[in-house]
């Protein structure tokens, strides 16, 4: 009986999410400065910085925090059935590398995370950590799982390195 109630409860959540149109509201990406432990501003925001030779210098970064902003209905209940998947794909070659390196595209992250608590505006955030970033372009694709028809969102982190 309890199991049936739990199932019905979960199913009810799903229906409510679908009805309320759970959407990915946006992506942010922050560079992590390995020398200071500080984060940059949003490099996907308005007037983003040019990401050249990011691993070198005072703000040297080889890691990126990606934040997926998810918008749900106001006061929507949390559910393990709704998750966010982020796939980060690094492009193969380095166009300006001294050696003219070639290579294939490589998935550097394919991770799924459950949603956390939702704020009064019906928004929650999910964070993902990308390691060894800074020279190759990274294509981000975020998707809502557990909500039929939910649209994905894609962004490019246009890292470039040159000697």
């Amino acid at each position, binding site marked *: 009986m309890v199991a049936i109630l739990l199932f019905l409860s979960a199913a009810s959540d799903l229906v409510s999410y679908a009805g309320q149109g759970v959407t990915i509201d946006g992506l942010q990406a922050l560079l992590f400065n390995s020398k200071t432990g500080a984060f940059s501003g949003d490099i996907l925001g308005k007037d983003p910085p040019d990401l050249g030779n990011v691993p070198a210098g005072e703000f040297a970064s080889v890691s990126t925090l990606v934040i997926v902003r998810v918008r749900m209905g106001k006061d929507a209940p949390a559910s393990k059935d709704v998750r966010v998947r982020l796939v980060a794909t690094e492009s193969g070659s380095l166009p*300006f*590398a001294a050696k003219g390196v070639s290579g294939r595209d490589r998935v550097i992250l394919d991770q799924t995370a459950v949603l956390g608590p939702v704020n009064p505006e019906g928004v929650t955030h999910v964070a993902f950590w990308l390691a060894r970033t800074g020279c190759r372009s990274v294509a981000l694709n975020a998707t809502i799982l557990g909500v039929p028809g939910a649209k994905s969102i894609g962004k490019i982190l246009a890292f470039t390195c040159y*000697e």
Partner: protein
Amino acid sequence: MQLISNSVGVGGVNNRSDVALVQAILVKTQRSVIRVPLIAPTLAPYLSSYDGVCGQPTKDAIRAFQDDHVWSTGNQTTPGGTTNWGFQTPLAPVRRNAGLVEPNGATWLKLLEKVPADFADLRVLTGGKTVYVAATANQIQERIAAASALTFEPAFLRKVVTCINAMHTLYGIALGVCPKGDRRDFGKQDDLLNQAEFVTNAGPGESNHNFGMAVDLGFKGLRWLRPTGEVVENEDPWMHKLSPGNVINAEALKFWQALRAVGTSGSVGLFRGPEADRPHLQNWSDAGVSMGARLADLLSRSGSMRWSAHYVEPHYRYRSDLGLGGELVELGTASQIWNKQATLTLDVLKRARAAAAGNPPAGAARPRPVTDADVTAMKQQLRDQFDLADTNWRSWTSN
């Protein structure tokens, strides 16, 4: 506006870049179109997109433009030399050069007259098909001011400015210095070597960027037209909008080739770096220059030790007398020394110090034994020598 090199349209030579330029003008120039009888006409471009290929839509668009602006106005001199007095009737004879644009012909001149002022100076690189808006004189001055505020050796900076000006004069492009494209200190060079895979083999003090005589230039802000005529307003230095991802496409390559050709021209006098490193220009030819030997020379002149370098694929390795005046001893790569990880051992340091001390006179105090702490201290001193060379970067020479 750049002049087309050959004719475009019906029976024309139809070079790709010429076609793209004419098409782009037709994409950006609008005409009144009556879509529904008795309803006010709407504005629409003569051509919906451009691609550098002179197909039927392009020929039709040229004809339509001629009908509107070339044949229908008075006292037009046709490219063939005959005079059209502007009398257009349903029975008017077929016009000479209908559907054809010739360099400096009547249709070309009318295209220049009718294109909106914002697009009065469109350009395209020879053989390319990407049309862009020429930079203004103010934009060039901004780029030169920005470059001048960066760290370069003064004579080299003058060449960089000459390059920026030449690129504008020849192609209407406002080059700018890429982020971190000026002088790079030894620490940044070490970051790049160890944190950015496959970018460089040059360690601290081994890159021409470390001496203010190399620059990375790019195309930030280049306003190019997408096929639909939409202007890209936020291009980055490496043209990721024109050439997304990590592979340079053919169109972007033409811009990089133009940059390299201008930079290495006799009037500018710069040299290219590695083949794939397209933003890079430097003050001397790599041929015959041993960056290791030149760093060893700078180290010897900047600090209190003698240095030499030899190359062991893929890095230079360094030797020093440790400031003791004796034989040079192996110390490893520049990056190892910079990071206080020189390959100096206790035995080597003992021998070096013993040799320096020679044979002490009888009765003299025995020298203090050499310890691991001395090795650690010496590694710090070696790093200090690199710091002195880094500070003294303006004294570096290529020979």
